[in-house]
């Protein structure tokens, strides 16, 4: 494997954006028939490197060769034609088109200018069969889950006699079974001699599938290693560039007694909140200073619960009491007036306003609550923004940069800051640590603990049970769009018990297939 010539090399790559040095003098190589993991914290330059490689961005300096020949792609389309296919972090497909159309869009089989639909559908079915997927190729892509859409994106990428396949965080929205399926496909493709560049934040996955690891930090190259020669701990140290003692600190955090927390009037008490087609009616109480974890599989209704509590969707019925007084949560603006904040899991569509600067994104919720006639004085804005840029370690530390120039993890921190500035009494965090690196993850977890110690209530949603367990005083479990249990987080609660709660009583049809 290692003795062959690299199929792809990148040497001395540098790239800057206004106010950001994203990459400087980075080398990278990729051998045929290997899975090569590209690792680094948020903002380390992983996505930028991929975009430089595929021609989305120009390079400021450096050279790229593909099978020994120098190349300079002007866009992903051209890179794909040359055999370098990419599946980007956000699925770039058209949900309103059919599965077959999505796979072949732009390169349909034609005769005399007319698309041969029969042929297109037949080839789409054959391709998907190779990935062990049995889908109705004429159905709109949007009718399938995000995970399936991800697979379709991969099918689209490998159709074009790919020699290099780039997967930019393909697993961040997949559940365990789907990840296994994806890995099976990746191994199959690797054995066919395709070189796979794999970006992920899940360390376990790296050790399960990657042959080789390249680590970036702050836009620079740390090194290239064989997976077998790099223990997990040193990988993490190389990524964050410091010793790891801080990581486990949270575990020691003395958890306050749930009974003590739940004395007195709850901050928010909802009963029979629900919405047809989204989530069955549920009841939940949240006290000041309490962290309520929301566990469950992808699509089990976690996000729907959060949206109802924030007024992003309207409940079909039920009551809500805030501080014991009957109230309502029918619009986000109303929820914010009651001191509720909500960080959506869908950062790009429902979180940041890409055009606006970091500063404007941060003060947006506070400004909205004040109304446009009472602008926040500029000095106060700078003060607030400065404080949170420092507190959350947002990079680059320039508040006037458009937020679109920031990496995903830093955008997430900007969103967190937006809500922290409003000093909410209940903060709803929907997958705040998804798709961000371990350093930022720890920072956010620590922050949640601090906030709850300070008396803020937090509803914490995460697919990672370990994280939910570490932070929560109480865990509400979702299954099939129902809240099936609320468990006190005492010594008897562990991931296994939550998993059992998620699984128990579930006689789903899939089991019979």
């Amino acid at each position, binding site marked *: 494997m290692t003795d062959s010539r690299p199929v792809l090399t990148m040497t001395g790559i540098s790239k800057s954006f206004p106010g950001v040095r994203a990459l400087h003098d980075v080398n990278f190589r990729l051998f045929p028939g290997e899975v090569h993991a590209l690792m680094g914290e948020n903002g380390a330059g992983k996505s930028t490197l991929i975009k430089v490689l595929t021609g989305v961005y120009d390079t400021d300096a450096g050279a790229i060769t593909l099978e020994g020949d120098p190349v300079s792609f*002007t866009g992903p389309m051209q890179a794909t034609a040359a055999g370098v296919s990419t599946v980007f972090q956000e699925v770039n497909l058209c949900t309103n088109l059919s599965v077959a159309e999505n796979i072949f869009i732009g390169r349909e089989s034609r005769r005399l200018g007319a698309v041969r639909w029969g042929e297109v559908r037949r080839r789409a079915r054959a391709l998907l069969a190779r990935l062990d997927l049995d889908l109705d190729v004429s159905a709109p892509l949007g009718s399938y889950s995000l995970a399936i859409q991800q697979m379709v994106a991969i099918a689209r990428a490998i159709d074009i006699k790919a020699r290099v396949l780039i997967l930019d965080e393909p697993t961040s929205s997949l559940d365990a079974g789907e990840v296994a399926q994806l890995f099976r496909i990746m191994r199959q493709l690797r054995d066919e001699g395709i070189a796979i560049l794999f970006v992920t934040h899940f360390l376990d996955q790296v050790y399960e599938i990657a042959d080789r690891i390249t680590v970036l930090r702050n836009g620079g190259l740390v090194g290239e290693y064989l997976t077998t020669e790099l223990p997990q701990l040193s990988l993490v140290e190389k990524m964050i560039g410091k010793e790891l003692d801080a990581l486990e600190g949270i575990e020691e955090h003395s958890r306050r007694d749930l009974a003590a927390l739940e004395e007195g009037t709850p901050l928010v008490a909802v009963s029979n909140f629900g919405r047809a087609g989204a989530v069955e009616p549920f009841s939940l109480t949240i006290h000041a200073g309490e962290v309520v974890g929301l566990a469950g599989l992808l699509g089990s209704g976690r996000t729907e619960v959060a949206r109802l509590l924030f007024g992003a969707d309207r409940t079909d019925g039920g009551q809500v009491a805030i501080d014991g007084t009957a109230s309502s949560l029918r619009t986000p603006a109303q929820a914010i007036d009651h001191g509720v904040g909500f960080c959506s899991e869908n950062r790009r569509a429902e979180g940041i306003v890409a*055009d606006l600067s970091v500063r404007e994104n941060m003060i947006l919720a506070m400004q*909205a609550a004040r109304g446009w006639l009472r602008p926040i004085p500029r000095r106060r804005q700078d003060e607030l923004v400065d404080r949170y840029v420092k507190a959350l370690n947002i990079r680059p530390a320039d508040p006037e940069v458009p937020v679109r120039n920031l990496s995903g993890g830093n955008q997430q921190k900007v969103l967190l800051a937006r809500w922290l500035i409003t000093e909410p009494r209940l903060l709803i965090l929907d997958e705040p640590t998804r798709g961000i690196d371990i350093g930022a993850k720890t920072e956010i977890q620590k922050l949640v603990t601090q906030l709850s110690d300070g008396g803020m209530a937090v509803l914490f949603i995460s697919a990672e049970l370990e994280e939910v367990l570490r932070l929560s005083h109480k865990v509400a479990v979702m299954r099939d769009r129902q809240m099936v249990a609320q468990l006190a987080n005492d010594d008897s609660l562990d991931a296994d018990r939550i998993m059992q709660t998620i699984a128990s009583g579930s006689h789903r049809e899939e089991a019979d297939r």
Partner: protein
Amino acid sequence: MNATMSRYRTMTGHRLFWPAAVLFVMLAANTIYRPGFLSIELKDGHLYGSPIDILRLSAPLILVALGMTLVISTGGIDLSVGSVCAISGAIACMYISKQSDQNSLVVVLTALAMALGVALVLGAWNGVLVAVIGIQPIIATLILMVAGRGLAQLITQGQIITINSEPFRAIGLGHLLTLPLAIFIALAAALLVAAFTRRTALGMIVESVGGNAEASRLAGIRSGRVIFLAYVLSAACAAIAGFMMTANVSSADGNAVGLWVELDAILAVVIGGTSLAGGRFFLSGTIIGALIIQTLTTTVYAMDISPQTSLLFKAVVVIAVCLIQAPAFRARFSRRRRNAPPPATIADKPKEQVPA
């Protein structure tokens, strides 16, 4: 890269550079063609000359385009501004023509107030259709664009209403401190809109709503109110522009006043750098855009280009302006100049659009 080069980059990188450069080139071309183009002379205490004319004639367009900028920034569009110009002009003229003393200042002010009031109602109508009922802006305002012409005709009873009112005429043709009054009105409106949006948080909130409506809603912005306000403001600007247009000729023609001004206004906004997709808006850019369009019109007349081909000429110039401003277009040219021959198979395909 030396210092001059980087200074050149910073300058050309400024968002107002290209619109301003185009305006400059146009003025230069006119001066070469007609050396007296830039000369200004003082006659009877008033300044005269082509530059003054361009400023005066562009005043109504600047007004309409200012309102349009806000509407476009919310992600909408307002096609009804031309009709609102016609209606407000018609109401003002109709009222004045019915009075015995047309030169009375009170009469004129009453007429303006009435017409402005109606315009605000029309703006509110657009605002309700878009922000409350949720009709797509292009359709919602198309209704008033078409129906408004009929309404203007109805007010004037199909006639061209001619009036003889000095105070009203002054809005279009009067002078203040040797300069046309219209210039001051447009300037005041620009300053007012700028203060209204940038001294308050309205500007940022409009940009946020236009940039990402759902994220803005989840940040607690009641976007309906903001969008409503933008349409009302747009109608108010159009009404004042309508006064100017009718005052210029001392008559109201329901069919002709403000005809196609919505298209010029949209063009001015886009030339000024505000994206039709919504988001960031640039009032100063819009003003330069309006000046470019008026200069172009003046140029067409000055160069004796036949009326049959003048629209085509305008179109060619506008396309050129838009291309020069498009970063992708400029990038292609600078890339070709910088990199010597790029790999042959790759060079000529267009760069694929990547959704941001």
